[in-house]
């Protein structure tokens, strides 16, 4: 099973963070010919301290002492002299990686320069079984279908669906409605988030009503939201989602959207605590998940999620649109 997972060619690509994409950058460290006790080091977690170099006459040990910035070369030489180590040490400056590696690719490349430590974060790993991919593909096909429906109605052809991956259930579907609603922000993603919220709110009200006999007044704000959903495809929300109390916004859900969400929609997905995002075509004009910004990996934000792009891109390519 493991083998099967690792050999599958994914029909989409992970949108990596800047740190994951980072090339090799170096920081100076003094390397020496033989082992000495280090007294001058600051944090050296990311690098191995000793490197063994084998050659015809046996081997040499290279030892990292410290960063070049932590002591001047003269002072270091003086220190070596004081400890009577001059005869066995040949001091030189060696380049090492400035940052700890995050991906295996970075590790393998950077490790050649000087051995570094690497512990792969299993949460970063994105493997899919062929069965999973088939399911994901069907969801994306559905999103494309919704984009097509949008186009036939004269809307901007962007479609999306939100899925509960645990139960493989479609929670909600929507497409762009900014033309018919005369509202520039009725994007597919925002529409989908709003519909889920309306459903959750209705459910919450009915729970509250059953607990208290008093009937709650209809919410004005809900009406405002509903006016836009008249034109949307049928709500496909499953009535009996168990454990309703644990449902919090879009936590743990997957969203499939034909085009890369704009910056507003990307941030709306952060606010909604989305689980994963799959999209097809990149949006070079205002894409927030890879093209213009990488909101899903931004350090200053309080929620992060995995994003995959290029999913069924060929099929979406014909729906030419940048929004």
């Amino acid at each position, binding site marked *: 099973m493991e083998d099967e997972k690792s050999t599958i060619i994914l029909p989409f690509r992970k949108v990596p963070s800047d740190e994951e994409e980072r090339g090799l950058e170096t920081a100076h460290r003094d390397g020496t010919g033989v082992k000495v006790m280090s007294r001058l080091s600051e944090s050296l977690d990311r690098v191995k301290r000793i490197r063994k170099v084998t050659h015809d006459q046996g081997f040499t040990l290279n030892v990292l002492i410290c960063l070049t910035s932590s002591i001047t070369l003269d002072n270091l030489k003086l220190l070596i002299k004081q400890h009577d180590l001059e005869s066995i040490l040949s001091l030189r400056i060696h380049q090492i990686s400035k940052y700890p590696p995050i991906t295996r690719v970075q590790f393998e490349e950077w490790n050649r320069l000087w051995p570094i430590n690497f512990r792969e974060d299993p949460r970063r790993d994105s493997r899919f079984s062929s069965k999973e991919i088939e399911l994901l593909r069907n969801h994306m096909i559905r999103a494309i279908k919704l984009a097509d429906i949008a186009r036939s109605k004269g809307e901007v052809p962007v479609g999306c669906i939100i899925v509960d991956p645990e139960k493989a259930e479609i929670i909600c579907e929507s497409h762009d409605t900014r033309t018919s609603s*005369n509202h520039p922000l009725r994007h597919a993603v925002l529409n989908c988030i709003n519909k889920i*919220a309306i459903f959750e709110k209705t459910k919450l009200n009915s729970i509250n009503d059953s607990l208290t006999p008093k009937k709650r007044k209809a919410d004005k*704000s809900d009406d405002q939201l509903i006016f836009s959903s008249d034109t949307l495809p049928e709500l496909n929300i499953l009535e009996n989602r168990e454990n309703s109390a644990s449902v919090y916004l879009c936590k743990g859900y997957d969203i499939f959207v034909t085009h890369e969400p704009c910056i507003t929609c990307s941030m709306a997905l952060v606010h909604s605590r989305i689980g994963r995002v799959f999209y097809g075509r990149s949006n070079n004009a*205002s894409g927030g998940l890879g093209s213009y910004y990488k909101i899903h990996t931004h350090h*200053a934000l309080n929620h992060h999620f995995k994003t995959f792009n290029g999913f069924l891109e060929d099929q979406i390519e014909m729906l030419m649109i940048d929004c």
Partner: protein
Amino acid sequence: MNSDTSQTITRIADDSEMIDETIHHKFMRQALIIAQEAYDSQEVPVGCVFVLDGETIIGSGRNRTNETCNGTRHAELEAVDSILSTNKYTSDIFRRCTLYVTVEPCVMCAYALRQLEIKHVYYGCANERFGGTGGYYREESIMLLRKFFVRENENAPTPKKKINRVLKTEIKPIVSLIPPGCLNFCQTIKLCT
């Protein structure tokens, strides 16, 4: 709770007499009153008003994220939706509008305002993570937020117990490179390019 409300609003009313109020202070005061309403309804206390041609308030909004079970129902989006739902205005109207909002808009709202081609945005206190230069009724906006965040949020997946939290009243002065007397116009962000 009620005494809280009256205290804050009285304070704002007092301020209006004490300081030489500009038109911006006047509109920000309206936004702050709406933010107080959000606070009183257990919502993140952010309020805003949209002003047409620098004269008339055509819409207002406050956070309703808890009430609507929707993390995207921020004050700005609420106001935008209420303005467009009246069918009195088309979306072109925002090109003539100035927004007064008690707290610096988040990335979602900022880009939404840009898509609406809003003319100007004035805000009360900055989002601390992204720096701050101060603004209209900054201290009131900060205190309202602090009061909110020492309260417990029952809507969170795992509500945090905040019994030991105390409300800080000290507000750090603004560290700004902009010389005083500049009318705080550093607060004006022109979102349209």
